[in-house]
């Protein structure tokens, strides 16, 4: 870039100094360039061609000296100059042109005229093509007398225009300067400058404003970014900090100092403080340590350890005593009982009197003084209206006194107090004693109220109303209940006959049930001779259906060709077979189940057989349901005992454990196929028999006969209900299978019969078509295993409830990558109900805390430096530690 510009300048200078006129011309010619004649151009072309050739020769000779070097330079220049050559040159031209115009006005006129003429002449001629600037040559029309050589000018132009100067062989600076050395008129200084120019060490042209700004901006950005990146570590640190407390960089609040430490660091500054201090020091008061004065210290110092210990113990004791005393007085002060205080006061008074008596003996002078005091008190009492029932309170009491014994008494008391206080000392003592005695008597008379009340509620049947809870009534009740039970037993015997009737009815029902069950069993197993007919009928029906199908097939034959039919037949057969197989499977399963149920039934039958016999033998052993009174039969409560054999045993010997329950049903022997579900095993799993020490007894209540009848009616329904759930297991399995089926993806058949082929009764869409339009469920996306797949006796719904998913998080929050991370981060509850206060505070720490009232200033550079130093030192420490 720089070199290119220098080159241009060289050219310009040359032109300025040597062939300014010629240049002028060129420019002018450029201006009118667009109105050139064709012929002229041709001439130019010819001339130019000749001249160029000549020039080339010349140049080759002239430039032989520095040929290689220059070429290299130019090559480089060519690359660089290309883009900004044009505008630079234009600028230069503009500048130069402006200066030179005035000097050569005369020439201009002439030239202009010529040009005009030319223009007029060329008006008619067609402009074939616009030739590029480069092609124009100096030699065209007018040659200036200053022209050194046409080639030179052309070369210059060429250089300016397209930068093809190297080839054109324009005038080089060296050529022009070569003669300079000989001319003495040129000063040595200019010579030097020129030489410098030749060397190519010229100043650069100032950059364009945009460029310069761009560069400046770049540099500024670089600087700023450097400046800012210095802060980045701090910023990161703050961003990652668990909690920011503004103002930042405040030293952590100092640990609580002890008073001594604080005082020690403090110094008096203001005159007032100093004065105070002076006073303190003058009086030998402790300044730093408020605990001990210098006196105390001195005394401490004077003491030996033993003494100190003793003294300390004394002090401790005194302190303890004082605290005890304080506590006691405080406690006493709290007591609101007037009576207590009255007694207390009295005691005090007595004590004072006693003291006074003693004083009379020991210290007459003191006693006199005391006497005076007492006298004075008496006088005061006499003077005032206190205790004379004249105050507000006394008046109000006086109104009530008629009706209220308490008020009267209170007034009386006041008067008594007055009397007491106004009496003379010596006589008062004996009276008080009397009073005391009176009061004591009163107290004895008083009896707590509840003594009288207790009798009233005792009569009620509710033990809680009696006001006291002893264990006697409970025991009584127990005895009563026992009696009731015994009585019930007696009633039972009376009701034997009725019960018997009921029993027989029940038996009949049960028998009915048995027979029905047996029939059903026979149906299922197909063993019973009678039921075979039914089966045959069913088979017949099946056969009919098949025939029908065959007929349909025949119809189809009429329409379609035989081969297709055969195919279809085969297919259908296969399908049928499949279906049959499935049906068989189901049947088998059901058979299994029914086997199980039958087994169960057998078991119950077996249990029932001895049951009935026992009923016959012992009439009173009725089923407890019959005796239960007033209870709704429909509740399961009443269905308590279906096969009453256990109770029978229990009732026989109520205190002994009942006979062991019948063993669990034996396992099935012939398992046809192992299914995943072994529900029977699950349900009939060996149950531990629990032995109960007490057997339930049913209390024969005070039910009436009509109630019993109701019961009997209900009994039927009850038993029906009880045995209705016989096929519970198979029902459940069926239901489960249905649910599984429903949740499985299904094959959707979209075939439309008669669409694209013949349709009608008995016609089935072709196999191909069906294949085509059957949308299969994605086999690849097999449904996930059901939750209840391994659990035979459980059905778990696979439907999602949308209500919960509304509250769930459905997108991972920012920094988390996996579910587990996020779920782990919220696994600990934050609330106070599950955590200690400390944990809650930690878990719910606010991200940013601003100290109220504190000025938050922006961070300073010094802090940055500080931090850096810290980190540096830290690093150094670390290094030290590790090496």
């Amino acid at each position, binding site marked *: 870039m720089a070199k290119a510009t220098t080159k241009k300048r060289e050219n310009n200078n040359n032109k300025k100094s040597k062939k300014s006129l010629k240049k002028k011309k060129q420019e002018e010619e450029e201006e009118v360039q667009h109105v050139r004649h064709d012929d002229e151009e041709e001439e130019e072309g010819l001339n130019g061609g000749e001249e160029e050739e000549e020039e080339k020769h010349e140049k080759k000779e002239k430039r032989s000296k520095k040929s290689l070097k220059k070429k290299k330079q130019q090559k480089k220049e060519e690359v660089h100059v290309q883009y900004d050559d044009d505008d630079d040159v234009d600028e230069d031209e503009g500048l130069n042109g402006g200066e030179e115009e005035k000097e050569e006005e005369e020439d201009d006129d002439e030239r202009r005229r010529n040009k005009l003429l030319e223009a007029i002449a060329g008006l008619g001629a067609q402009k074939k093509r616009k030739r590029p600037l480069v092609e124009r040559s100096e030699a065209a029309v007018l040659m200036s007398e200053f022209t050194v050589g046409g080639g030179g000018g052309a070369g210059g132009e060429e250089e300016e225009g397209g930068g093809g100067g190297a080839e054109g062989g324009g005038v080089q600076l060296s050529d022009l300067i070569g003669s300079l050395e000989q001319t003495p008129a040129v000063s040595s200084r200019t010579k030097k400058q020129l030489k410098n120019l030749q060397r190519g060490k010229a100043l650069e042209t100032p950059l364009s404003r945009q460029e310069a700004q761009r560069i400046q901006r770049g540099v500024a950005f670089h600087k700023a970014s450097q400046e800012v990146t210095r802060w980045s570590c701090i910023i990161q640190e703050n961003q990652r900090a668990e909690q920011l407390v503004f103002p930042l960089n405040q030293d952590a609040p100092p640990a609580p100092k002890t008073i001594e430490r604080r005082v020690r660091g403090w110094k008096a500054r203001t005159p007032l403080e100093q004065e105070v201090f002076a006073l303190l020091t003058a009086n030998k008061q402790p300044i730093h340590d408020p605990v001990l004065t210098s006196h105390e210290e001195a005394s401490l110092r004077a003491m030996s350890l033993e003494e100190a210990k003793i003294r300390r113990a004394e002090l401790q004791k005194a302190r303890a005593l004082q605290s005890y005393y304080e506590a006691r007085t405080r406690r006493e002060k709290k007591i609101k009982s007037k009576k207590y205080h009255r007694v207390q006061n009295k005691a005090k008074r007595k004590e004072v009197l006693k003291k006074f008596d003693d004083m009379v003996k020991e210290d007459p002078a003191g006693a006199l003084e005391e006497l005076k005091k007492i006298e004075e008190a008496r006088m005061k009492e006499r003077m005032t209206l206190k205790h004379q029932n004249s105050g507000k309170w006394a008046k109000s009491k006086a109104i009530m006194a008629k009706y209220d014994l308490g008020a009267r008494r209170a007034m009386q008391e006041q008067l008594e107090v007055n009397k007491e206080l106004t009496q003379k000392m010596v006589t008062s003592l004996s009276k008080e004693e009397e009073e005391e005695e009176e009061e004591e008597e009163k107290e004895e008379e008083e009896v707590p109220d509840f003594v009288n009340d207790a009798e009233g509620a005792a009569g009620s049947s509710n033990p809680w109303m009696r006001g006291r809870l002893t264990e006697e009534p409970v*025991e009584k009740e127990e005895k009563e209940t026992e009696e009731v039970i015994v009585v019930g037993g007696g009633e039972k015997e009376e009701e034997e006959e009725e019960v018997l009737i009921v029993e027989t009815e029940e038996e009949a029902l049960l028998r009915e049930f048995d027979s029905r069950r047996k029939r059903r069993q026979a149906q299922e197993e197909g063993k019973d001779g009678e039921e075979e007919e039914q089966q045959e009928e069913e088979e017949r029906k099946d056969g009919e259906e098949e025939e029908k199908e065959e007929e349909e097939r025949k119809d189809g034959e009429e329409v379609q060709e035989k081969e297709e039919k055969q195919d279809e037949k085969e297919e259908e057969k296969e399908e049928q077979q499949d279906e049959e197989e499935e049906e068989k499977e189901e049947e088998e399963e059901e058979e299994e189940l029914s086997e199980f149920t039958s087994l169960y039934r057998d078991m119950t039958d077996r249990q029932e057989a001895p049951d009935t016999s026992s009923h016959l033998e012992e009439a009173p052993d009725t089923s407890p349901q019959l005796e239960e009174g007033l209870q709704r039969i429909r509740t399961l409560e009443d269905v308590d005992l279906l096969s009453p054999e256990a109770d029978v045993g229990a009732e026989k010997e109520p205190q002994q454990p009942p006979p062991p329950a019948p063993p669990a049903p034996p396992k099935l022997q012939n398992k046809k196929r192992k299914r995943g579900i072994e529900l029977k095993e699950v349900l009939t799993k060996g149950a531990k028999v*629990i032995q109960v020490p007490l057997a339930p007894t049913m209390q024969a209540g005070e039910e009436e006969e009509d109630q019993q009848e109701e019961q009997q009616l209900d009994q039927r329904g009850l038993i029906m209900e009880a045995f209705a759930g016989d096929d519970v297991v198979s029902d459940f399995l069926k239901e489960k299978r249905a649910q599984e089926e429903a949740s499985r993806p299904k094959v959707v058949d979209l075939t439309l019969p008669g669409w694209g082929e013949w349709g009608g009764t008995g016609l089935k869409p072709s196999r191909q078509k069906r294949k085509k339009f059957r949308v299969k469920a994605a086999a690849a996306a097999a449904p996930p295993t059901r939750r209840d797949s391994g659990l035979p006796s459980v059905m778990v719904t696979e439907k999602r409830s949308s209500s919960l998913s509304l509250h769930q998080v459905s997108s991972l929050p920012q920094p988390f990558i996996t579910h587990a991370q996020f779920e782990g981060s919220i696994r600990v509850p934050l609330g106070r109900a599950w955590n200690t206060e400390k944990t809650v505070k930690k878990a719910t720490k606010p991200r940013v805390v601003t100290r109220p009232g504190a000025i938050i200033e922006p961070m300073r550079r010094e802090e940055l430096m500080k931090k850096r130093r810290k980190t540096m030192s830290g690093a150094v420490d670390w290094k030290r530690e590790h090496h």
Partner: protein
Amino acid sequence: MASVGEATLKDSHVGKKKKPPARYWEELKEKEEKDENKVGEDEEKSEAAQQQEEGDEQETQKGKKRKQEEEQRDGNKSISGKSDPFPGPAPIPEGRVQKFKRKEKTKKPRRHHKKLKDVITRSEEVAEMAQKEAARFDLLLPEDAGFLEGDEDEDTCTISQEDIADAVDITSGTKYFNLKLSQFGPYRVDYSKTGRHLLLGGRRGHIACIDWQSKQLMCEINVMESVNDVKWLHSETMYAVAQKKWLYIYDSNGIELHCIRKFNDVLRMQFLPYHFLLATASSTSFLQYLDVSVGKEVAAICTKTGRLDVMCQNPHNAIIHLGHSNGTVTLWSPNQKEALVKMLCHQGGVRSVAVDKTGTYMVTSGMDKKLKVYDIRAFKPLKSYFLPAGASSLSLSQRGLLSAATGDIVQVYRDVWSSPVTKPYMAHRVPGTVWGLHFCPFEDVLGVGHGDGFTSMLVPGSGEPNFDGLDANPYRSAKQRQEWEVKALLDKIQPDLISLDPTELGHVDHATFQQKHQDRVQALGYDPLAKERFVPRFKKKGRSSTGNVERRKKQVAHEDQRDVIRKTVQEKAKMEKERSEREKKKAGLSSQRSALDRFKK
């Protein structure tokens, strides 16, 4: 330790005589030095002793360690000059810490994710702190439940209630009592959540609420209609009564507050205390939920399973269990119109269902006279018992005691799920057929409602001895109750959140997440969560040949798997080492001849 303290005291006093008085912070340093010296001497002595005893190298090392510890202790000395003999926080037993563990720790990402790492470490810190603090504060629950223990050859079930009542203290003794209420039929029973109040509902319309511990009758009314069930609402100020036709709500003074006509023919009720929901099961096979805080019906589900007279709730997840006449037990939430789970439990109809406090076990009894225990989390049967007469109603206590009623006998079982039971823990005969059973919370009492009134039984070890004062405080005042009520209402859980797994709310909704993610991938044109593929950096000078690149790729392939493998290998090595050591020890022991070996043949 004490001797050291005395010594220092003496020293300081001697010093004081000569020097001007000095404050403790001034002489702290000196003291420390002295103490150190002292301790050092002690240490030396102890070391010497140890060396004398054993002369073992290890021991000296230990001594040094202890010395260091001692020095550290001296560093954080208190003002009194005595060093803390037990520095640092008190240790917490490992088992107790384990008790409060919530899931496993999250694994930290391996690199590049500084922010994520921070977040995870922070949450882990909180989790650990919560766990430790909770374990530390577990100390504040000192009470433990007791049990009845019989003499030799004496079954606890033969001990009569009277004997127990005589043996225990007077206050506990008064908790065994009978109420003879033969007039108004068999009684249903309910205790309030705090266990302080008792609600009795007689079949023939008699309703009474009692502060049963002080034996104070709060109200007593006869609704002149048959009563199917009674239930306390959230506090002891209100209760619901399922009457012949409608559901009624009364307050504790017996004033009728509401008659809810939307709920008809209700047979059984359950109250979900944290959701403020009253769940009712009706004879028309409807399961309905009433939000008692706003008085609205939340859900009405037609179960299509006939008469619903067996009902209980799972206190762990607020799921309602219903028993049916076809031997199935179904689980319901208000959010789904079909049963969440259907279990075939019995061959006859289901007579009663109960779920324990932790939501782990379900106990059912059926017409087939069986008593079955299920693990309700896995829906698997655990135990099956045969009761000679079947159990008509069941109730589980807070401590996991099971009471079962057969006729007029109430039996109480212990540990039905863990060990096979052959005999009841306790048994008691009540005057009439049992109609309702309910363990009293926070008391060792079982309330039995029967045809002849009510019996309060003493069952040692049934109640939770430590109550949470902020949740259910048996001793709360009216003011506290009001405060609790406000808080409980604020903390009310919406019925939407009831699901089989109560922790499900803390999981990411996978289905929605995947859908969203797919959409995002489509919009972006790439998977933002995909694992970055390792692209080896281009290296100059021919070092980035294909072979080289492949080799470099291989170096980082399966890195996540490698970790696992490495771990397992390490574990295996560890196990192997332990095993070998054990064998060595064994061999060593066997080679040693003991004094008793001579008796061997």
